[in-house]
C-alpha cells in the first residue's frame, strides 16, 4: 500500500545550519501520527517543508505518490494538505465566519460549505455566538478550535497541526485533542507536531521522536510510552552520559 505521505532522506539547512537531516517517515491513510521533540528539534521546519514554506536541501516528499517538493504554497491545500501553523494564525481582523469561509476558498460547492460551517458552529457554540466578531478577540483555545475548523473546511486528506496545545490550559488541550480524534473519525489523516509528548502519545497511533534535526526513535505510541529510552531520545541525551 502506498503511504498517504512519504518522506525520504529529507535534509533542510538554514545557511550553514543544518535543521533537518536524513528524515525518513511515512503517514498512512486514517492514522494520527505525532512528531514529538523539544524546542528546536526541527519539528516545525519539517511541517513547513511539507507545506511548501521551506525548500529542502535534498530528499523527497511524496503525497499520494506524487512528489510535492518545490510546489507553490497555495497548491498544498489544493492537493489535500491543510496546515494549522503554530501560534494559530487566525485572521484577527476578519470575523469568525469570514475565517471559516476562507477555509473553503478552494471549494465550489457553496451549499455544502454553508452546511459544514453551520455544523462547526453547532460543535463550538462560542463560534456561533461570535460569528460576526473579529477572530482576534477569541481566547487561545477558541482560536485553536477556529483554525482547526478552518483547516477542515478545505476538505483535506491530511491535516497537519503544529503545536496545537501550545499556550493552552490542560483542560482546553484535552478538548483540542478530542477534536483531533473527531477529525480522524471523519476520515482525515492527522500529522501532529508537539512538545507536549505525553498528550500527543495518548492520541497518536504512531510517534516519531525528533531531536537536533534527526529521527531518534519511532514506533507505535503504545510501545514508545513504555520504552525506557524514550526520554533519552526526546531530550537528546544518552542515559549513560553525553549526547545521543
Amino acid at each position, binding site marked *: 500500500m502506498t503511504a498517504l505521505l512519504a518522506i525520504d532522506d529529507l535534509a533542510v539547512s538554514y545557511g550553514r545550519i543544518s535543521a533537518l537531516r536524513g528524515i525518513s517517515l511515512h503517514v498512512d491513510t486514517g492514522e494520527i501520527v505525532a512528531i514529538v521533540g523539544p524546542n528546536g528539534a526541527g519539528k516545525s521546519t519539517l511541517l513547513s517543508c511539507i507545506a511548501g*514554506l521551506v525548500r529542502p536541501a535534498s530528499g523527497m516528499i511524496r503525497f499520494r505518490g506524487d512528489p510535492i517538493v518545490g510546489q*507553490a*504554497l*497555495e497548491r498544498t491545500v489544493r492537493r489535500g494538505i491543510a496546515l494549522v501553523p503554530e501560534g494559530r494564525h487566525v485572521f484577527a*481582523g476578519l470575523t469568525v465566519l*469570514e475565517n471559516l*469561509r*476562507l477555509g473553503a476558498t478552494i471549494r465550489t460547492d457553496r451549499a455544502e460549505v454553508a452546511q459544514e460551517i453551520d455544523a462547526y458552529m453547532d460543535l463550538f457554540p462560542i463560534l456561533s455566538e461570535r460569528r460576526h466578531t473579529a477572530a482576534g478577540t477569541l481566547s487561545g483555545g477558541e482560536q485553536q478550535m477556529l483554525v482547526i475548523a*478552518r483547516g477542515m473546511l478545505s476538505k483535506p486528506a491530511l491535516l497537519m497541526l503544529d503545536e496545537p496545545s501550545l499556550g493552552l490550559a490542560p483542560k482546553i488541550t484535552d478538548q483540542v485533542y478530542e477534536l483531533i480524534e473527531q477529525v480522524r473519525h471523519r476520515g482525515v489523516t492527522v500529522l501532529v507536531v508537539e512538545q507536549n509528548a505525553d498528550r500527543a502519545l495518548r492520541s497518536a497511533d504512531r510517534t516519531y521522536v525528533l531531536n537536533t534535526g534527526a529521527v531518534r526513535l519511532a514506533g507505535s505510541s503504545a510501545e514508545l510510552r513504555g520504552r525506557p529510552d524514550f526520554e533519552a531520545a526526546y531530550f537528546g541525551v544518552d542515559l549513560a552520559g553525553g549526547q545521543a
Partner: protein
Amino acid sequence: MSGLVQIAVDALSLGGLYALTALGIGLIFSVMRLANFAHAELVTCAAYALFALSGQPLVMAFSGAIVMAVALAVITERIAFRPLRRADPTTLMIASFTVSMLIQKLLIFTLGSRPKSLDPVPALSQAVFIGSTQVSLLKLVTIGVCAVLLLALTLFLKRTSFGLQMRAAAENFTMAQLTGVRANAVIVVAFALSGVLAAVVALLFAAQSGFVQPRLGVPLMITAFVATVIGGMGSLVGAVIGGLLVGIVTTLLQAYLPPDLRPFREAFVFALVILALLVRPNGLFPARGLKERI
C-alpha cells in the same frame, strides 16, 4: 456660511482625490508590502491616454485611460515586481522608484516635457449654486465620484469572495496562501484595481489642473503616500481616512494661513504629519499582522 460651504467642497474634493490615490497605493502595499512610487506614472499615463483621445466621446476616452493604467499596472507587476516578490521592502521600494523614473523619462523622450493642455470633461467647468454659494460643478462631481468609488470598493472587499481573499492576504499573505488563496491572482487584481483608481484620479485631476505633463502624478502620489503613512501603512481604511485628512488640512491651511505663509502650505502639512507620527508612529489605523509572518 458661504465661505464654510466653499471650504467644505474644496476640502472634500481634494481629500477625495488624495484618498483614491492613497487607496491605490495602499492596495498594493497591503498585499505585497510594496510602496509603489510608480503609481504616479499610472496617473500620468492615464492622463496622456485622455489627451490622445481628446475629441472622442468621454466614455471612449475614459475607457482608454482605464485600459492604459490597468495594462501599465499589470505589466509593471509582471516584469518588475513579480521577480522581486520575496525581496525585502527596501529593494521593492527602490525597484518602484526605478520603474517610476524609467516611465517618466520615456514620456519626456517620446512626448516632450512641456505641459499639454487638456480638458477631458468641458461640461464640468461651470459653477453651480448651493443655496447662495457658488461652487465648482467639477468639485462636486469629484466628491460624488470618490464617494461612489469608495463605496463600490468597500462592497467588493466586504461582500465578494475575492474581496475576502484580498483582505486575508493583506493581513497575512502566507497564511492566506495556505488556505488556498492564489497569490498571483490576488496581486494582479490589486494592481488592476490600483490602475482603475489611477485612471479615475487622472480624469478628475486633469480636469481640475487643465494640463498634462510627464510629472503630473508625482506630487499627487507623494501627498497620497504621506496619507497612507498617516492612516497606517497596509490599512485600506487608514489610506482613505489619511487621504481625506490631508486634503482637509491642506484646504484649511490654504483658507486660514496668513497670505504670506500660504506658499509654504505643504511645509505646515508635513510638520503636522511629523507631529501625528510622533504621537502614533504606526499611523491612525495600524494594519494587523504587518510584521506577522509564519
